[in-house]
């Protein structure tokens, strides 16, 4: 889906009037973006096929506690005898749901709020942007801890909370872009010729903010993954959702973990996974930026 979105964005930017050169679009996906995308799609693959890839149900007590890696348990077992490799595979689902879910939510809010603020302007603009400033000023982690305490720590609560916290950055950018586009003469003309607002928004404004939407999605998703891992690590996540952060917490709960080799197969793998997932999103973001931003500036 991201590939399609990326291509669409690039097509729109390069050929705003709809003349697409398919081969050119293919070659225009840069190396950085490609690496990021491959990594990310790898995680998506693992998440989708988790039940096939994981040798055990991650909740099942499939071995003795604290087993070393073996053929039966590639990464050994955790403190209650659950297969660590299977936990890792299923943990991908949670990180992706939270990352992508919170990213989409944040971007949706950003488009609606930023768009409304930029297009309608006036007092609505003022109120929405001050609300955004307020949320930006709030420290994220303590805020999330508080919200968690109030509404519980389920996966969906976390997605919604992160989305509610992350929209302002993207909304600001979208707002200013919408404001800029709105001033264009052809848009003023379209108005005078009687085009309705929704048509103008969809036909003329949306293509301009699409790249910003993709950035917003990628950046918010990366930060949401990190935030979820951090919360789970602090023991504030959903205790039933065995995410990578929660795995690390359980590993470090074992006293003396670092005095043996056990951290190599219990603590390190989830940490590496978190890092790689965030890295993949970051790479996509960097790639898109260098491709798309010059185009924006030219206009």
């Amino acid at each position, binding site marked *: 889906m991201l590939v399609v979105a990326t291509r669409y964005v690039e097509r729109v930017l390069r050929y705003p009037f709809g003349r697409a050169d398919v081969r050119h679009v293919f070659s225009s996906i840069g190396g950085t973006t490609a690496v990021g995308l491959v990594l990310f799609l790898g995680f998506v693959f693992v998440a989708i096929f988790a039940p096939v890839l994981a040798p055990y149900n991650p*909740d099942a*007590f499939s071995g*003795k*506690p*604290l087993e070393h890696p073996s053929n039966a348990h590639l990464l050994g077992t955790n*403190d*209650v*005898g659950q297969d660590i490799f299977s936990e890792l595979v299923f943990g991908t689902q949670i990180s992706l749901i939270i990352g992508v879910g919170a990213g989409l939510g944040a971007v949706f809010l950003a488009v609606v709020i930023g768009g409304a603020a930029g297009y309608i302007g006036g007092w609505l603009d003022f109120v929405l942007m001050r609300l955004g400033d307020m949320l930006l000023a709030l420290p994220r982690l303590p805020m999330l801890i508080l919200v968690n305490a109030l509404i519980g720590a389920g996966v969906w609560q976390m997605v919604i909370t992160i989305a509610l916290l992350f929209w302002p*950055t*993207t909304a600001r*950018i979208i707002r*200013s*872009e919408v404001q800029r586009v709105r001033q264009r003469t052809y848009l003023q003309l379209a108005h005078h010729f009687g085009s309705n607002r929704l048509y103008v928004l969809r036909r003329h404004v949306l293509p301009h903010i699409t790249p*910003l939407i993709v*950035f*917003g999605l*990628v*950046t918010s998703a*990366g*930060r949401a993954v*990190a935030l979820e*891992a951090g919360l789970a690590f602090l*023991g504030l996540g959903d*205790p039933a959702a065995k995410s990578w952060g929660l795995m690390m917490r359980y590993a*470090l709960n*074992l*006293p*003396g*973990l*670092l*005095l*043996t080799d056990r*951290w190599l197969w219990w*603590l*390190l793998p989830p*940490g*590496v996974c*978190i*890092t790689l997932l*965030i*890295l993949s*999103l*970051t790479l996509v*973001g*960097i790639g898109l*930026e260098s491709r798309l*931003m010059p185009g*924006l500036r030219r206009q």
Partner: protein
Amino acid sequence: MRPRFRSSLIPLSIAVLMLLFMIPACGNNDDSGEAQESQAQGNLTLRLPGGGYWGHPSPFGFNRGPGYLRASLVFDTLVWRDASGETIPWLATDWELSDDNLTWTFTLRDDVHWQDGQPFTPADVVFSITYYLGNPGTAWFMAQVDQIDSVAQVGDHQVAITLKQPYAPFLATTAESMLIFPEHIWAEVDDPKTYTEPDAFIGTGAYRMVEYSVAEETYLFEANPDFFLGEPYVKRIEFVPTSDEFLALINRDVAAFDRFGGVTDEMLVPFADDPYEIETAPGEWGMFLYFNLEQDTPLQDKRVRQAIAYAIDRESLVERVLFDFGSVGSAGFLPPANPYYSPDLPGYDLDRDQARMLLDDAGYDGTPIRLAYSTDWIMASPRVVEIIEAGLLEVGIPVEHVVMDQASLDAAAREGNYEMMVVGFGGLGGDPDQLRRNFATSSPSRGFSRALGYSNPEFDTMAQAQVALTDRPAREDRIAAMQAILAEDLPVLPLYYTDRVIVYNAEVFDNWYFTPGGWGGGIPMPYNKHQFIVGVPTGLDIRE
């Protein structure tokens, strides 16, 4: 208008990476080694893992056993206990019981001073007990002060404590755990639990409270040079938070750590050689599943409770939560380490068919049952709950989770605000009168170990009778019968008992022991203040 993601996301991912590689490095700070002066230097400081905030160490402000430990450094009791497990003189040098088994007369030391210089007198003892009696709920629940009818000063150095009825374990529970506090300070205090002025921490104890911090979870005590036995052997005791006690001991950040369950031989390998020493002791700390019988739930039916016992794989709990360093709970509540433990009880070995049959008999309709637990501290409850829930689901009992912090959980336990609750506590090696305290209908106790809503007249009769029995075999019979009733009725399902271990650096301090039956009325932790004060396992002579 460039989105600022480049500047925020890359550091973020780097931070995660760094976090990973920093964790092993965290333990390597060596700056605290100086705090651990060697024993030879005569300025012995013990830094110990604190495990959290346990209230303020006044006679009224502490929480649970670890809180009592802190308060017991500052405040004394009439008698105490050493490594022999026998009662030893403390504030009282001598005691005797009247022929009717009702009046205990204690002869008090006449050379004791409060830490503010005021002399300690029998009036202080009379005041303390009168205060506890006049303000029910202020004394520590393990002290059983409600057994006392009255107290009076006799002569210049004696107090006479009269009981409501003969109470066999008086010396080992009440006299040993009831903290004595100064009349000249507390006579004017209205709300003892929240009183934290500096003079709230003035006792007769071997240590002065120097400071404590709610936020940092630290406590600092210094030796009281005017202590009645002489200047204590250990000069300074600090309780500090640790993220990993094993690493902390290796880095000499702490002098010792103890674990209740959850240790394997492999984990202890780093401590196999000098200067480390390892002591173990059987379980006097247990994890329990409490059924609140005050509330109208399917748990009212004994068969449902028995079904739950058959459904939960308690062997698996011992294997997966304790790493086999512990034992399965006895349905009669008392652990094998208690001298009064009865081995002839139904074991409720895992049998899910039996569980389903009992549920059918009881007409259980699949009503979900709420399970309260805490994820704090030593509880390990998320893992415990995982295994409990798996067993209950297997026989068709859905569970709703209620997660609380430890203090809220203890409060909910006292207030009866739960249906089922996973709660752990110690004191199980202490006097078996705890069975009466926790299960008898008439028991006024509202501690977190009190079974709510349970009433069995047969049990009550025996519980009342055993209190007065000073004849050991006769009392043993009664206690065994009481355990049999509990095992049948199951107002509480004992899940497991944790074996105990203390690992210490003998170069810093070598006099560690587990007190038989626990100290201060049954506390199973290896931190009996006696060992810090005198520096040897038994007696009152302070080590040179």
